[in-house]
């Protein structure tokens, strides 16, 4: 139907390009510096302790890993669901998935107590551990997406791309289930131990991944001055709105289920009302700024036509996602475990009290380093390899667009 999309590497000779590359290299350097400081001095220089064992680095890492699988959405829609208008963007989608995953995994590994023992993690497996499974899911995802990219970009292998796309799609669903299960399988803590965390994480990955994808696409086309039509952009922004609504749905079901169980009223009151920074991040960060405002922006009949508005909404979804993960990961640990139901508990090991947590600069820099690595890989790859379509103008992505636009069906029928 559509003409073969023409993909071409960026020129990448402008001052802006090198400036961006420089900023990302600095970010990676700062991340590495943080990792060195942490392994030299130990984790006591971070805000993490024996109560809050996973902190800000894990918020960044899990965001990137979750967004990685979601960044593959566009490729999946093209290869698995046969929507040809997304086809030109499929390689960028796959590239983003690999890069985000690499950034997230780098943070996770560098935050280990013994990052030097990575080889142990690669050679000793306990297959009852969802963590061990995730090691295979993450590396497998990377390998599958790389092969898929090869099939997409090598003309002789194009015929195999749909099959590889299907495998990658199924794999990313399992992968995000595995990421949600890291928390879902924790029977001891009130805020976790819920099967719904797996589908919640899948919905989150759809939303975060697409938000990142939209921002990168808008930036790449603006800075490279290549044409980007409204057709594909408006379909994607509508899709983002639906994914944000899906996250809201799962969040609502999660909290309503917990609110029904009296034994979980304490943790719900903590996360939704009295827990200080966590209710604030939940209501203001995740719900209002990260969900309701983007929904209004994305579906407003006039505002949503503006690219600035779409970019703002995508950025808000990302910030809301970080807030959501902060509440899930750190809020879930801050609430004291109910070891002795019905009794007041205290000890020198901080039993029975809410654990305080103040992230430090070291943790922030480690997170920024991972984000920097992910973006660096993308920026370098689109400079040297043919990832970006030369044009995403409406008539290029859909030759029938001109005739269809007359009947007023330019936006997706979602």
């Amino acid at each position, binding site marked *: 139907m559509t003409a073969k999309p023409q993909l071409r590497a960026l020129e990448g000779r402008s001052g802006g390009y090198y400036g961006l590359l420089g900023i990302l290299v600095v970010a990676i350097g700062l991340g590495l510096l943080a990792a060195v400081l942490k*392994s030299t*001095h*130990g*984790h*006591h220089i971070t805000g993490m*302790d*024996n*109560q809050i*064992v*996973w902190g800000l680095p894990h918020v960044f890492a899990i965001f990137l890993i979750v967004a990685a699988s979601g960044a593959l959405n566009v490729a999946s829609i093209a290869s698995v669901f046969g929507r040809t208008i997304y086809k030109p963007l499929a390689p960028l989608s796959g590239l983003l998935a690999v890069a985000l995953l690499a950034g997230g995994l780098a943070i996770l590994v560098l935050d*280990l*107590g*013994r990052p030097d*023992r*990575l080889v*142990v*993690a690669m050679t*000793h*497996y*306990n297959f*009852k*551990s*969802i*963590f*061990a499974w995730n*090691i295979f899911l993450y590396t497998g995802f990377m390998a599958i997406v790389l092969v898929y990219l090869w099939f997409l970009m090598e003309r002789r292998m194009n015929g195999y791309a749909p099959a590889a796309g299907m495998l990658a799609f199924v794999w990313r669903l399992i992968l995000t289930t595995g990421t949600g299960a*890291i928390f879902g*399988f*924790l*029977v*001891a*803590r009130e805020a976790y131990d819920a099967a719904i965390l797996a589908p919640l994480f899948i919905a989150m990955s759809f939303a975060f991944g697409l938000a990142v994808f939209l921002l990168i696409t808008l930036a790449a086309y603006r800075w490279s001055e290549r044409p980007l039509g409204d057709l594909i952009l408006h379909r994607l922004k509508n899709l983002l709105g639906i994914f944000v609504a899906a996250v809201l749905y799962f969040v609502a079901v999660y909290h309503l289920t917990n609110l029904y169980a009296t034994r979980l009223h304490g943790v719900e009151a903590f996360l939704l009302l009295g827990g200080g920074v966590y209710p604030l991040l939940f209501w203001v960060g995740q719900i209002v700024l990260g969900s309701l405002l983007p929904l209004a922006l994305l579906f407003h009949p006039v505002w949503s036509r503006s690219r600035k508005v779409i970019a703002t909404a995508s950025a808000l979804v990302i910030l809301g996602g970080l807030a959501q993960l902060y509440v899930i990961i750190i809020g879930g*640990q801050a609430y004291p*475990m109910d*070891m*002795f139901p*019905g*009794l*007041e*508990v*205290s*000890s*020198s*090991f*901080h*039993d029975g009290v809410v654990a305080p947590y103040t992230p430090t600069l070291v943790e922030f820099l480690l997170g920024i380093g991972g984000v920097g690595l992910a973006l660096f890989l993308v920026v370098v790859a689109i400079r040297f390899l043919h990832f970006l379509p030369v044009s995403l103008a409406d008539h290029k992505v859909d030759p029938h667009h001109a005739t269809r636009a007359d009947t007023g069906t330019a936006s997706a029928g979602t």
Partner: protein
Amino acid sequence: MSQKTSAPLSRRQFITGAAAAVASVTVAPGVFLMRPAEAGTAEGVRWGLLIDSNRCGDCNACVTACHEENGVRGMDRPRTDAQWIRKVELRDPETGYSHSLPVMCQHCEHPPCEDVCPTGASFRRADGIVLVNKHTCIGCRYCMMACPYKARSFIHETLTDQAAHAPRGKGTVESCTLCVHRIDRGERTTACVEACHEQGNGAMIFGDLNDPDSAISRELAEHGGTAIRADLGLNPGVRYQGI
């Protein structure tokens, strides 16, 4: 005969013997680290503790003794300092009744820490003792997320002056070993239990839960005992009375 055995070794014998000696010195610690020593544990044993919170006094003797025994010293940073055992104060808000008890690794039959550990560093010995293999722990802290008893500590900084029998390395996770070094030497008590007896409280009993004639089993059979978070079905090796 004696002349024959005391004859000087041939070069081949010497080299073979030396190689065997080097090999056993190199391999033996690894072998014995992972396997309960013969003196320690007979087949079918399950080591455990019974703690009577009605007898548990205001003292901290068990905590001090444990940390002394295993070289667990604080750096005056309460949030990151390791605690292998801690005294927990309990108060019933309905009645005002308060009491206290020590909490340590509960040495579960189905330990969540072992389930979630990606490398298998968290493991349970055949005699029921749950340990961390310090050689394969990568410091991911997932076991600390999973433990319902908050029994584990992460080593947040470089440590010096450690006890030879309790190696502790920065960046790994640790917890109560049920004084496994004593058990493997053939002793039948732990530092905490010993200190509790010396203190005159007698609130703690160590023993074999699988031996119906052991003091711990007889006491449990006579007066019963409960597990913390029994609802999780983990069948801990540490039991309590008077919670």
